């Protein structure tokens, strides 16, 4: 009973922060900007957040976080609009939405497809917010007792999980992790003050900025990749009449929405998980459970409802490891960690105890933001359709300009733009060679944290490496990592994994 009262008090505190007029406004900005850019194909959430990050530097911490979170789930939602109407995923998490969403749109049911995506996302958002409020406090309690050894093991687990979830060869994904760790080493070593790998350049003395690396790889690299595809986009021209799904459609969809929400909430917490994994898993689950799986791919409403619910739920619960442990579980959360650090707050379990207003305000704002999304998007769908008709030739120079100015504004240094261009080149090259960039970016952000905790753990144990095996939590986490690794290398799973990525 006492626990429930406490939870209610926390939620009340959260809403008092989230409903402040300033924060409401920034939540609205975030949601609208996120949807707007999410609708545009070929610009993922990482590039979107990196591009808009400089704006949030001028805001107080709570407003900045609320706006960034709004951008993230707004982009998630916008991506599904593009998937349904153009058959192009606006984000990687809406790849599966293309399958049945576009099929529905072609048979004249674009409205209900968009409607169920919005409703599904909303329900999922509510469920994930509630789960976040329930499970974050006990997890934080646990996290407060963690020492450097536990953190090292958790980060190792996170890195191994991204390797497994990366597309293509495992060996290359491992190499990308090490490349990311190496790039993370650039800059002044905190404990000795030695400038490492800075080649005498003052621009590198403070290390490579994660926004610059992310912008180069995801922003510039993706524009080049889009330009070579020259795909013709045919936007659905038929007017969208009704957005509200019919009673029969709702009857078909409510169970998949609930299942997708729960599955997405669970998968979002896992390291390396998040929105993309959740939507793939939810689609597969619905296809398995369906009485007639052949309907999938031909406009089954469950095939839109479940993954859309799951990706929104996963997007929100992926905040849990970031907020409670300070460890980002995917590239978007890595950017969030950077954004919080810039605000002068060290992410980790102490955030909840020291800045409960920030913590609970963010959680409450997610629910508020989801209400805004539903309220805005149902009537604004016409606007998004018009936005989709803007030719790419007009869009990409504008995106490029925003990216350049965004990078410049980080420290008012034009050389940062040159570094971003270099990473655009490296990123594009590596993608062409079949290396997925996500493990690199995550390792890049985790690298300095990993090194610091490793050095601290080894100093505490007087150089005895068995410290990672004698502390029970650390041992358990490492065993899980090892199990994941063994399972992935098992021939059966490897075949399944290749099927999942290619099929």
């Amino acid at each position: 009973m006492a626990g429930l009262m406490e939870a209610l008090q926390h939620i009340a505190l959260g809403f008092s922060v989230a409903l402040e007029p300033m924060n409401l406004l920034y939540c609205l900005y975030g949601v609208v900007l996120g949807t707007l850019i999410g609708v545009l194909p070929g610009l993922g959430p990482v590039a979107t957040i990196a591009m808009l990050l400089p704006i949030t530097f001028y805001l107080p911490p709570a407003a900045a976080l609320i706006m960034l979170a709004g951008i993230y789930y707004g982009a998630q939602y916008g991506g599904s609009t593009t998937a349904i109407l153009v058959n192009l995923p606006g984000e990687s998490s809406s790849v599966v939405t293309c399958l049945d969403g576009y099929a529905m749109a072609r048979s004249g049911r674009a409205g209900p497809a968009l409607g169920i995506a919005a409703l599904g996302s909303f329900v999922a958002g509510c469920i994930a917010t509630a789960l976040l409020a329930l499970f974050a406090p006990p997890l934080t309690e646990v996290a407060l007792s963690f020492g450097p050894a536990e953190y090292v093991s958790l980060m190792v687990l996170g890195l191994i999980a991204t390797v497994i979830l990366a597309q293509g060869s495992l060996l290359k994904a491992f190499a990308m992790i090490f490349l990311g760790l190496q790039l993370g080493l650039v800059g002044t070593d905190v404990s000795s003050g030695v400038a490492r790998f800075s080649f005498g350049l003052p621009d590198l003395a403070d290390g490579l900025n994660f926004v610059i690396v992310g912008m180069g790889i995801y922003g510039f690299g993706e524009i080049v990749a889009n330009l070579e595809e020259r795909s013709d986009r045919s936007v659905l021209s038929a007017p969208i009449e009704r957005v509200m799904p019919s009673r029969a459609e709702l009857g078909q969809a409510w169970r998949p929405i609930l299942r997708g929400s729960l599955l997405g909430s669970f998968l979002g917490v896992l390291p390396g998980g998040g929105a993309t994994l959740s939507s793939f898993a939810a689609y597969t689950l619905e296809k398995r459970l369906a009485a007639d799986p052949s309907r999938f791919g031909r406009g089954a409403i469950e095939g839109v409802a479940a993954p859309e619910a799951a990706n929104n739920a996963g997007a929100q619960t992926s905040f849990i490891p970031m907020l409670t442990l300070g460890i980002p579980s995917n590239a978007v959360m890595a950017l969030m960690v950077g954004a919080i650090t810039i605000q002068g707050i060290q992410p980790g379990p102490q955030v909840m105890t020291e800045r409960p207003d920030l913590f609970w305000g963010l959680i409450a704002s997610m629910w508020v933001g989801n209400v805004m999304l539903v309220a805005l998007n149902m009537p604004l769908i016409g606007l998004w359709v018009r936005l989709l008709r803007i030719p790419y030739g007009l869009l990409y120079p504008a995106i490029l300009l925003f990216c350049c100015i965004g990078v410049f504004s980080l420290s008012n240094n034009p050389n940062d733009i040159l570094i971003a261009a270099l990473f655009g080149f490296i990123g594009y090259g590596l993608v062409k060679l079949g290396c997925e960039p996500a493990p690199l970016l995550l390792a890049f952000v985790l690298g300095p944290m990993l090194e610091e905790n490793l050095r601290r753990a080894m100093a505490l144990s007087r150089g005895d490496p068995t410290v990672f095996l004698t502390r029970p939590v650390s041992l358990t986490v490492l065993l899980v990592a090892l199990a994941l690794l063994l399972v992935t290398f098992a021939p059966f799973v490897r075949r399944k994994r290749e099927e999942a990525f290619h099929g």
Partner: protein
Amino acid sequence: MRLRVRNSKNLLAGLIFAGFGATGLLVGQRYAVGTAFRMGPGYVPLVVNAGLLLLGLCVAGTSFAGRASLAGSDETRPSIAMRPLVLVLGAVVLFALMVRPLGLVPATVALVVVARLGGFDFKLREVALLCLVLAGGAVLVFIHGLGLPLTPWPD
């Protein structure tokens, strides 16, 4: 037995990784390694770079192996779109070099024109209009609005 390259992507990727690792080892020689108890600034770089070099060699090695499962199934050479790659990134570089000495307006125009040359259609009138709108908008939003320390034109 003759070695045959079966996967040129893996060969190139592996050599790039190994190159980064080897460079890191060379540059990192200067940093004190220390002991596991008191790690110096060179300890972790040594481990990471050695790992990168080793993994890079392994990746390169798979390009000679016949087993597609280890190497990944795609055996084609990478197709690289040189035109957008050079011109889009070139546009970014030009912007970076021009924005301080020449101002935001000339830098934006250079960015837009060169970036559009990297695309598949270049319509003079459309590009001119785009330059006008973006340069004007950027000056309004970023110089007058957000107050970035930039000037529209050379001083």
